[in-house]
Structures are given as C-alpha cells and as structure tokens.
C-alpha cells in the first residue's frame, strides 16, 4: 500500500485493528452445513464481517475475529447455527 507523508497522524487499514477480537467471545457459533440452505442471512447481518462467504455461497466463521454476538444464530431461518460455550 502507498504510504503518505503528512504533518498529521495517519492510520493504515488492516485486519484486527483492535487485536484478535475473537478472544472476546463467550459463545462460539458452529454451523451445521448439512442443513444450511445458503440464504446468506448470517453473512449479511454479521456486523463484523466474520461470516465468510465462499464462491459456492457456503458460509464459515472467521474465529479470529468473531466476537460471539450470536446474531447469526438468532437470525438463521433454519436454526442451523448453534452457540456453544467457549472452553
């Protein structure tokens, strides 16, 4: 990425600007892909962008940054996402 010199403070974009936010999680979303209908509601409504959408529209969770809010599980029309207690 191009870097700028200026007489002010400039921050640069990267993943994990606030660290590995996955460590904030109390509950971990686990997707049962065998009954997922690929409606992508979890992907659309994840605030963090931590639900990953593959080329075939199957979804997976980016556990490095998922904060465990549970919106994906609550909004899933087929209830295929379980929230499991972190160890």
């Amino acid at each position, binding site marked *: 990425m191009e870097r700028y010199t200026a007489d002010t403070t400039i921050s640069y974009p990267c993943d*994990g600007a606030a660290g590995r*936010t996955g460590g904030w999680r109390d509950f971990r979303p686990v997707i049962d892909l065998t009954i997922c209908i690929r409606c992508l509601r979890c992907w659309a409504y994840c605030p963090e962008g931590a639900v990953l959408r593959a080329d075939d529209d199957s979804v997976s969770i980016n556990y490095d940054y998922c904060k465990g809010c549970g919106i994906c599980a609550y909004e899933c029309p087929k209830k295929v996402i379980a929230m499991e207690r972190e160890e």
Partner: protein
Amino acid sequence: MAIKDLPREELMHPGAGSCPACTDLLTLRMTLKALGPKTVLVTPASCTASVACGYPKTPFGVPVLTMAFAAGGAAASGAVAALHRLGEDDVNVVVWAGDGGTYDIGLQSMSGAMERGTNFIFVCYNNEIYSNTGVQRSGATPFGAWTTTTWKGKVDQRKDMPAIMLAHRLPYVATASASYIEDLYRKVQKAASIRGPKYLEFHIPCAPGWRFPMERTIEMGRLAVETGAWALFEADDGKVEFNLRSKQILDGKTQRKPIEEYLELQGRFAHLFRPERDEEALAGIQQFIDREWERYKQLAACGMSVG
C-alpha cells in the same frame, strides 16, 4: 434486490474495536458495499470515530477524516471542494455521524452544508443516545427511555430530524433500518446516484445502551418498524413514499403492533413495567406513535416541494 446480490467485496476489515452486535459497524459495512472504494468518510466524534481513531491501525478500507463533533458538515464541504480542485468529482463524500453529531451538536454545520448545495451524503446512524460516552440522552432519545442523564426516564419527546431535512428541500431524504438491510443498501446506492446534498438516517438498535440481549439486535430493529416506533420512507425531490412494512401500515394493509411489544424487551424501559406498570406513560407513548402516523399520512399526501 436479494441478499445474494449484495457484493462480496468487504471494505471494512474484521477485528474493529466496536462492541459485539454493533449495528453501526453492520450499516457501515453495507454502506461501503453500496458505495465502493471511491469513497471518503468524515466521522465527527461518535462511536465510529473511536473505532476509526486508533493508531497506527484502522479497520476502514477507505480514507476517513476524523473530525470535531460540531464540524461534520463543514469538513465534508472542505473535502468536496478539495476533491473538485483535484479533478476527482466522482468520489462519494459521506459524513457518518451519530445522532449526537446530527440532532444536537452537529446540526448547524450540517444545515449549512445542505443549504449550500454541497454534493455529499450525510448519514445519521441513530441509536437514540450518546453511546460512545456512556449512554447519555440526545435529541433523538424517545420519551420514557432511561439513560445515565435521564435515570427516571426521558421527559421530552424526540425531534423529527428527517422532517427538518425535508424542510431543507433536499433532492433525496430517506430513513432506513439496520434490520432491513437490502432496503438500506438500495437507498445508499440511490443517494449516491443523485447530485446535491442527500440525507440518510439509519435506525440502529444498540444492545449495551438499550439494555437487551445482543443476539436480538436485528429483531429489535424489526420490532421498531412493526410497532411504528420507526418508519421507513424516502423522499425523492420532496415526494414522500413509504417503504416495505411501513407502507403496508400506512395503506392500512397491516396493523401496527402495540408499542409495548417493543418497549418491554428493553432494559431502558423496564421502569415502565416494574415494579408496577406505569399506565399513564405507556398510554402516552402509544398516543404519541398514533399521532406520528397521522402526521405521516399527511406527509405522504402532501410531501415537501423542492426548489
């Protein structure tokens, strides 16, 4: 527009410093999907600014100008002028301000930028409180809501900011909700396609500030629309049209749900239900919503002329 058609490209990086279930982050993500990389954001003091302000890292994949609380509109005017000078008139300049930076502290500079016809989009993400500083009341806080500065419930009604913006005779004014994401995406794209000053307001439930379980965040926004506490509409050159569920309600095809269904799920209204029900306040809130909808009917019929 279906969810499948939303672009895959993400301009927000994961791992931002915002709370879990933050709908500010969700609507930012969707707005940047709609606008694409040729976008400059201006963020006055707000939750977003505290997410963006970290040094040396930021989650934003587009340039962000973090600005003083009152200066959102003024900074956008400057950014638009500077980009014009550089010959880059195809860049979307977007102010991304909270309800404090819109309804209260940011009002005059925004009003000025609108009146001067600046070619930009002003987005107010409205969570009805000053959440970044620890949940104080704002001009957008609804009657009866607990905040740290209204600990027996707010005694005043909220302002109607979209109507104030309609009175500026803007080419495009729209309200949206984090819970109707395709509608929100469409309105952002439409705003970007119109020249001149545009105003968008997003209703975004805030789990820590409103005190409800965070996984129900999207449901809370949906209930706000279904009970009529929030209305989805857009005004093209002053002609007001309601959208989705709000249109059904206005046309009498769907009944509004009782406002209590929305209030009783939120800790900020718990004092209206426990230890005993505050019938007077609850009836007052319902009457206020009823009156608002009478007004919406007139608004849809008459609109606001532009020019």
